[in-house]
């Protein structure tokens, strides 16, 4: 089991979500984060004084999948999140020991997603 964490632009999320859904990976979690990287900051002015924001808003996607599915997820994210400009973001893959579905209490790979390869349930 692996967790894919991606920090991407807001605009990229919707097409990624839709393709993942089609591919059988409906389950993921997103959150609003602020990232610092190569992307430029933004300078605000207020009553003559200025204020620089180095942190820019990003969407963080968290998606836990079976190890075999990592490539599909990463590729899908790369496909839609790439604009070629600085600030496109990063994807990280991390190990996961175990997963539980709260509703049923069951655990293991089969709780992860509903893609063809996984234990269907619906």
């Amino acid at each position, binding site marked *: 089991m692996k967790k894919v964490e991606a920090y991407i*632009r*807001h*605009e990229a*999320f*919707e097409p990624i979500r839709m393709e993942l859904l089609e591919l059988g990976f409906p389950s993921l979690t*997103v959150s*609003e984060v602020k990232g*610092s*990287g*190569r*992307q*430029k*900051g*933004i*300078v*605000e002015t207020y009553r003559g004084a200025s204020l*620089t924001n*180095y942190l*820019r*808003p*990003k*969407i963080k996607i968290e998606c836990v999948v079976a190890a075999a599915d990592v490539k599909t997820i990463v590729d899908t994210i790369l496909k839609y999140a790439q*604009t070629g*400009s*600085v*600030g*496109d973001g990063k994807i990280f893959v991390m190990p996961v020991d175990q997963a539980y579905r709260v509703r049923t209490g069951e655990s293991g790979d089969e709780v992860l997603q509903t893609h063809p390869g996984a234990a269907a349930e619906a």
Partner: protein
Amino acid sequence: MRRSLGLRAMCVVLALSLLAPAAASADVWQAKGVPESVGINTLWVVIAAVLVIFMQVGFMFLEIGFSRGKNAGTIVAKIFTNFSIAAILYWAVGFAFAFGGGLGHVIGTEGFFLRDFGNPTDAFPIMGFSDATIEAKWLFQFSFCAVSLAIVWGTTLERIKFGVYVIYAIFFAALIYPIFSGWVFGGGWLQANVGMQDFAGSTAVHLIGATGGLAVLLLLGARKGKYGPDGKPRAIPGHNMPLFGLSVGILLIGWFGFNPGSTLNALDTRFAEVAVVTLLAAGAGALGALVTSWRITKTIDIGMVGNGVIGALVAITAPSGYVVPWAGVVIGLVAGVIVPLGVYAIDKKLDDPVGALTAHGLCGIWGTLSCGLFTLPALAEFNTVGKGGLLYTGSFSQLGNQALGVVVVFVGVFVTSYLVFWLIKKTYGLRVTEEEEFQGLDISEHGMYGYPEQFIPASELVGYGAAPQHGAAVSAGAATTEVTA
């Protein structure tokens, strides 16, 4: 489906209201050659009415401020819908029922659709002391009806079905408010025969509204989660104190129309004195509530200070035309003390999110009774209603009459309102589902949040957020800076 009931009823009433006068409409207006005093007094009454109409915005933000953010938008729709229903029905029938009869009447009979009456002074005798035009008087009295209706709903926030507003508003603006307010200050039997004093409506407007609010609350129940498993009340803080501040400010301004405008007369200059009394009461109320709530909770409660202003204004509404300034200060101060005590006590059992039962109910009662204590005999005479208060006359008679009036109106409005709400509960239903309540009325009743950006994930909104679309330099206006080495 379910919702169409109220709307249909409304349409029928509306259609009727239009057909009738269409037949003979040209009678409303005639060329005028009127004395200047008519113009001046009409001017004052219209301006006062506009100030009172502005109070709708005050009630809107009182409720918005004290609601959770998921239930904020619905209040906007509610206020304008109710206001509109009241406008049409008070024009069609309400005003006639309230004012269109001889002194001592139970229900008026003249002046439907503001037409087909003879000399306005005969048709609406109680307002004969003012020569303002009947249109101005209608506008002013309508604005009171709309305030009273707005007060009702303070107890029902965050869980009531929208259609209930519509259905009850019809009954309220067409019947309940006109009849009972007519008894109190429309020249009805409580005013003309009992001599009950209520200058601008502590009872006739505020208590009527709060009583309707009590009736519906008993049938509606508390917001889910308001009372813990132990039965103890839990804090459900409103979401926006600044907007609550706006509401109090607007209500305060509106009250300068409400009370002083009730003179219906500018030329005797009484209205300026009423304004001073009103202001002093409001000030004393804020301070009374501040100190009282601070002594109890050891914090400076923003809501209490604001509600102290409102409660004091409600209290001074009845006596404002009958008392001198120092009495206004006393009346306001007592109302200010009542506010936190009433809110804390009622909150133990009844879930009244804005504190309407206290501010408009208890303070309305206190204000009405206070005439029995503080009415200056000369002013009772000037207004030709009732007698001086206990303090001046040593007699309990006026106080008794005030109490009688309060009881009659409370019982009358409670019974009729309870009946209407009970019928609604049995047919259309009063309350949204638990699911809808949890989601919030904005999304469940109106299909959209009142604050969409706070409830809809940014990634699902079009062009939301402040992130530059490309990493490229942001052009003119927003200067940029390189951060990486």
